[in-house]
């Protein structure tokens, strides 16, 4: 079993990814983003993305109801169904689901973060949270009947409300629920780069034991990414490949270990 995470950037080669996957015999589940599409849609609907910075300095996207509407249009709507369409054109019997559908991904809503507003410290709650459980029965029901699940946000919280969540956390949860040996993450870069601005500094191999050390060296988004990677291995992933989603054969190259291999 493999999990294929398709990044939400505009330069990701969806056509090439799905064409490669049609040649794969191993069963797989796709998790995809659509952040570039969501940002453009929010812009043209003049609902620009709101970010908040907590008193302890972490900045995060504010997922209010309006942001969730845009997310449902971009992630669970346009991007999900265009991937499903592409899959069927390549003989992959895809079924697109958000985390809400059949409660396939349930989570816990964030308790709220402490933010400063006009000089006062306040608790700010939005509609975001952490994924906690997977409806593996539904996924297996589909997989065993020849369907390929194509998953995306939003997920569903403890009060059955749609909430936003990090795709990396969803991938980690799915990896352990489905005991996937391989996780391929297709991004808009050749893989992990020592120096993000210099593609030639690609790190081709990282031993999973090194992840803890590397996590200390980085900040912000990259720190979160490495933490999510560590979780993947804590839960039994054998191999994670971070590869370039923009090339002609993203999945084939990834399976040939072109990119950053972590094991």
């Amino acid at each position, binding site marked *: 079993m493999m999990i294929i995470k398709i990044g939400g950037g505009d330069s990701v080669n969806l056509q090439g990814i799905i064409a490669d996957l049609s040649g794969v015999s191993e069963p797989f589940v796709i998790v995809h983003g659509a952040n570039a599409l969501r940002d453009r849609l929010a812009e043209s609907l003049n609902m620009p993305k709101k970010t908040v910075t907590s008193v*302890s300095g*972490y900045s995060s996207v504010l997922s209010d109801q309006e942001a969730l509407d845009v997310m449902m249009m971009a992630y669970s709507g346009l991007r999900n169904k265009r991937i499903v369409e592409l899959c069927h054109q390549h003989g992959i019997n895809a079924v697109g689901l958000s985390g809400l559908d059949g409660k396939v991904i349930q989570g816990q809503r*964030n308790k709220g973060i402490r933010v400063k507003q006009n000089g006062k410290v306040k608790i700010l709650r939005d509609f975001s949270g952490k994924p906690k459980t997977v409806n593996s029965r539904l996924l297996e029901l589909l997989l065993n009947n020849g369907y390929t699940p194509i998953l995306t946000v939003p997920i569903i919280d403890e009060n059955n409300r749609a909430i936003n969540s990090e795709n990396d956390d969803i991938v980690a949860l799915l990896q352990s629920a489905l005991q996937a040996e391989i996780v391929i993450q297709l991004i808009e870069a050749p893989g992990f780069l020592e120096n993000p601005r210099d593609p030639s500094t690609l790190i081709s191999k990282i031993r999973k034991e090194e992840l803890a050390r590397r996590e200390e060296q980085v900040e912000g988004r990259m720190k979160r990414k490495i933490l999510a990677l560590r979780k993947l291995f804590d839960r039994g992933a054998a191999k994670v490949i971070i590869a370039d989603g923009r090339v002609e054969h993203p999945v084939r190259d990834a399976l040939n270990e072109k990119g950053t291999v972590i094991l």
Partner: protein
Amino acid sequence: MNQNVTCPVCDAVFEVAENVELNELLTCPDCGSELEVVNLKPLEVAEAPQEEEDWGE
């Protein structure tokens, strides 16, 4: 004029500034618990959720 409110943790009664806002974080002067203003009319407070690193997207 200021209003009084009772701390749900130690039952101490303390004064709250008039311009207090919804979801504002207060600290009980007696037991030091962090309290959140959960209602304005009538004024109500509850224990604030613990600190949580909300690493949203």
